């Protein structure tokens, strides 16, 4: 039987209350949202917080998808299922529906949250690459106010984020750019599994050329939520199969996957290349109305 080590349980009733509880309980306190990443780690004793602060009562305060004034604002407690089912979100950022269709399974998606996924920062977790590809900003609430960091600065590496003790991620903001498109492709061994490899792409077109393009990879190495050399290679270029192949090769060159039960390093490197090509092709097609 896998059971977490003993801890004390608190339930937060508001963001301010959660911040106050973290302040009082100190560095050994952890927030739990859906719990579908943290509880498995606690069951394996990889995580042993002394205090668990349940923030599920904040699902009204922090569970929303708002599209206004040229940006999308998503509350940190928005569940995977809500991200998947939102037609408004899919209309402006189709990469979210692409990714959510293949994140875990429908039952897990009923509980898991956007904020929980980003704060877990698992290198095989899909939404960090998605959010970095679309240039998201993360709103972090602190005791004295809030600060906003780019997704790229938020994700510091495996299981490490910009959220410090006593702070919490409350919202993700994504700019809506005219002439933009996005897509996500993932290969998994079976429905609901972690990625063998996946790639997300977002492009903004300026007429027939790519004004801005970003690709994020997952499960093929640390710190690949945005592969910066790819953005440099895409800028100002006209989309073509040759360009996609060049950029796919950059993805492969930057990947450093490990051989494990999901596949060999060579296979995952091949996937990094091919999935980059496919997601870029799809993102450009969507941006130019040819999808």
């Amino acid at each position, binding site marked *: 039987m896998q059971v977490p080590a003993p801890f004390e349980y608190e339930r937060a009733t508001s963001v301010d209350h959660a911040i106050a509880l973290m302040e009082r309980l100190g560095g050994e306190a952890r927030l739990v949202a859906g719990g579908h990443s943290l*509880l498995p780690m*606690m069951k394996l004793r990889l995580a042993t917080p002394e205090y668990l602060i349940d923030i599920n009562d904040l699902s009204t305060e922090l569970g929303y998808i708002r599209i206004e004034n040229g940006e999308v604002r998503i509350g940190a407690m928005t569940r995977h299922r809500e991200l998947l089912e939102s037609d408004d979100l899919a209309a402006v950022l189709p990469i979210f529906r692409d990714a959510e269709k293949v994140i875990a399974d*429908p039952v897990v998606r009923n509980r898991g949250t956007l904020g929980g996924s980003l704060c877990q920062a698992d290198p095989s977790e899909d939404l960090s690459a998605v959010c970095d590809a679309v240039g998201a900003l993360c709103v972090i609430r602190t005791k004295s106010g809030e600060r906003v960091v780019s997704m790229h600065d938020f994700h510091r590496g495996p299981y490490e984020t910009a959220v410090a003790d006593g702070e919490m991620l409350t919202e993700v903001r994504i700019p809506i750019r005219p002439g933009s498109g996005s897509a996500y492709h993932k290969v998994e061994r079976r429905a609901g599994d972690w990625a063998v490899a996946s790639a997300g792409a977002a492009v903004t077109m300026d007429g027939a050329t790519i004004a801005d393009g970003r690709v994020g990879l997952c499960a093929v190495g640390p710190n690949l939520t945005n592969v910066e050399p790819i953005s440099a290679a895409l800028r100002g270029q006209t989309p073509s199969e040759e360009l996609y192949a060049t950029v796919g090769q950059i993805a492969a060159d930057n990947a450093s996957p490990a051989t494990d039960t999901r596949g060999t390093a060579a296979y995952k490197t091949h996937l990094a290349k091919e999935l980059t090509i496919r997601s870029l092709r799809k993102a450009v097609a969507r941006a130019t109305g040819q999808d």
Partner: protein
Amino acid sequence: MEISMNVNGDDVTREVEPRTLLVHFIRDHLGLTGTHWGCDTSNCGTCVVWVDNEPVKSCTTLAAMTGGHEVRTVEGMEVDGVLDPVQEGFIQFHGLQCGFCTPGMMLTARALLDRNPNPTDAEIREAISGQICRCTGYATIVRSIQWAAAKEQETPVEVSAS
């Protein structure tokens, strides 16, 4: 700590350790052993119960997190001696062999039909994709759920939500 919740329409209160998982609370504290405890890693789905009308994996939920909420287990599917059409479907189309995955499968199927009364084969397979059956090959489970959907389309059956 003391937690209270509504399980299959009954209010229950128990003293538990905060680390008690919902699946063990249901089985060991309430004695409702219809909910099965399987992989312990949120993969197999036999521990699925409803929390506030949504299927969740109870091996990856703390009992404490469910305090104040409504839980429905497989024991809550039958109402006043009348089986839920999903349960009937599993009998009609042999939706089980060993029966280990069955409670989770049926609760997920019930939730699917409440949201989508006439699902396609693909929608049924997607809905149960977080659950593993090692006996049937899934074909008879899909048919069982289709049977329940068809029955409910012809003769509406009153199904309690909690």
